[in-house]
């Protein structure tokens, strides 16, 4: 059966059928379809005001213990200290691995640590 069906659609006859299907108005049914996504469950807000001058400010570091932060955080500290007198750092070990097994519990502690160390701004890395 399959063989005989295929042989019907060879050569000129097949070409004619294809042309008809491209150029004729569609006789296929139309469907009204609905949206497959969901309503966003958040309200957008603006980030906080920036710190105009980092001199004498306390900078916190939050890290996910990934991608060589143990190398680049010290470089950032060193270079920021050269440019901003009195700048101080609360290093990432104070906060722990914020992407590790205790992520949620440690992130929940962040607000208290910010207050305890009177942190003015935070450098967070690395990744989304």
């Amino acid at each position, binding site marked *: 059966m399959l063989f005989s069906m295929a042989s019907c659609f060879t050569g000129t006859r097949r070409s004619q059928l294809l042309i008809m299907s491209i150029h004729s108005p569609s006789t*296929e*049914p*139309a*469907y*009204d*379809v*609905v*949206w*497959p*996504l*969901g*309503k966003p*469950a*958040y309200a*957008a*807000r*603006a*980030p*906080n*005001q*920036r*710190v105009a*001058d*980092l001199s004498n400010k306390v900078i916190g570091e*939050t*890290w*996910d*213990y*990934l*991608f*060589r*932060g143990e*190398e*680049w955080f010290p*470089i*950032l500290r060193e*270079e*920021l200290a050269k*440019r901003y007198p009195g700048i101080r750092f609360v290093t990432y070990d104070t906060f722990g691995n*914020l*992407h*590790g*097994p*205790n*992520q*949620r519990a440690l*992130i929940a502690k*962040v*607000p208290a640590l*910010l*207050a305890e160390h009177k942190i*003015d*701004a*935070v*450098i*967070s*890395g*690395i*990744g*989304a």
Partner: protein
Amino acid sequence: MLRASAAVERVGVPTVSIISSGFLKQAAVVARGLGLPEMAIAEFPGVPMTQSKEELRRQVVELLLPRVIEGLSKPIQRGEPEREVLLPQPEEAVMSGTLDEINDYFHERDWSDGLPIVPPTQERVHRFLQFTERDPREVIGVCPPANREATVWNVAVNGVMAGCRPEYMPILLAIVEIICTPEYKIEDAGSTPGWESLITLSGPLVKALGFNAGQGVMRTGKQANTSVGRFLRLFIRNVAGFTHAPEGADKGSIGQSFLVAMAENEDAVADIGWQPYSVDRGFKAGDNVVTVQSVVAISAPTYSGTESAEEHMKIIADVIGERACGYWTAIGMVYANWHPLIVLGPSIAKVFAKDGWNKDDIRRYLYEHVKMPASRAEHYAWHCGQTGFRVTEAVKLGLLPHAYHESDDPDRLIPVFQRPEWIGIVIAGDWGRNQSKGYVCNHVQGVPTSRKIVLPGNWDALLAASRPKS
């Protein structure tokens, strides 16, 4: 890390988040989902893991540092306030067209997975809704990172699109309940290892709905296994926001395709006097239970040809334990979580039972016999990017058991399987062959999570009316 930054911003402290170049688009999706679309970002140029020490220093001083300073100090230019977007109402048609036109429309908007979809018409969606007593408007949960609402309605819509039958709806709802639990960490389903969610189904529904639990259990081909597996990937794309390049939040570097749903062969389980996987997961034998967990890699087909349980075990420990799990378990140690799944062919399970072994004996053997040097685990973890990880430190923090630090020898042998009770075992596959396979999980991301499937009161009548007429 943007979740940490958001927690900081919420208490009034400004942040700058360092994101490497390849993650900027993922960051945009995550930031929007966190409600902070204008979060300050400092781009870390390139791939930090492949830069020399000198190059890394130069990049940090010359490029990253000015971006960090700008992010912390320079007032953020507010964009045009987003105009209120009128979202379609659930029953509202978003377009009308032929099958091809609908598929083009959905593909263009990333509402599809690249395969043709079944048009989600109201009528088809309502057929699915007949198989639940829940309100279609019920919000099951919120799916990060896009943070969209998962509802009974959009479960049905995506089920239609995936080619499911209406009677699969109770399973689909249980699956979505699972991925909406915080423990499942669906927000990390776009991490670079490219893990996929594996669905395992136990209970009478396997037979009632025509799932394949035997030969080729993990192949596409059976409508039930295939469409339910496809549904989950589609739902994660559409509701959690995990589309991939060029714009999406799915950073699976190479990734993998969706896995068809696995069905347990409970006849084979009963035949040898073991308990089904549902009981291992805390339910009663005979319950319809769905379990979802991450799978980041699959072992080689593991053949063991012997009438001795111990000889089977040695090969499984070697191929599935040492070779398949022995690499990625290092990342499991980083996250103090490791839930591999072993699928035993019925003939192999039968040999274990004949020799008096049960699933706990298999788990214990793997825990005690499969080991690796601690230095090798740290080596693998570092190359993956976990540059701050030390096994000894994890033990000191109470994240790993004492067995991981019995001496200070860096080459001491440590277990590949963190806890015997974390090893899943399911019997499925070809009864006429002697094969097993290991499914390697992605640690704390996608931990095995189970739900009992809730059927509507008039299930039998509904099912009788819905099954294909042969």
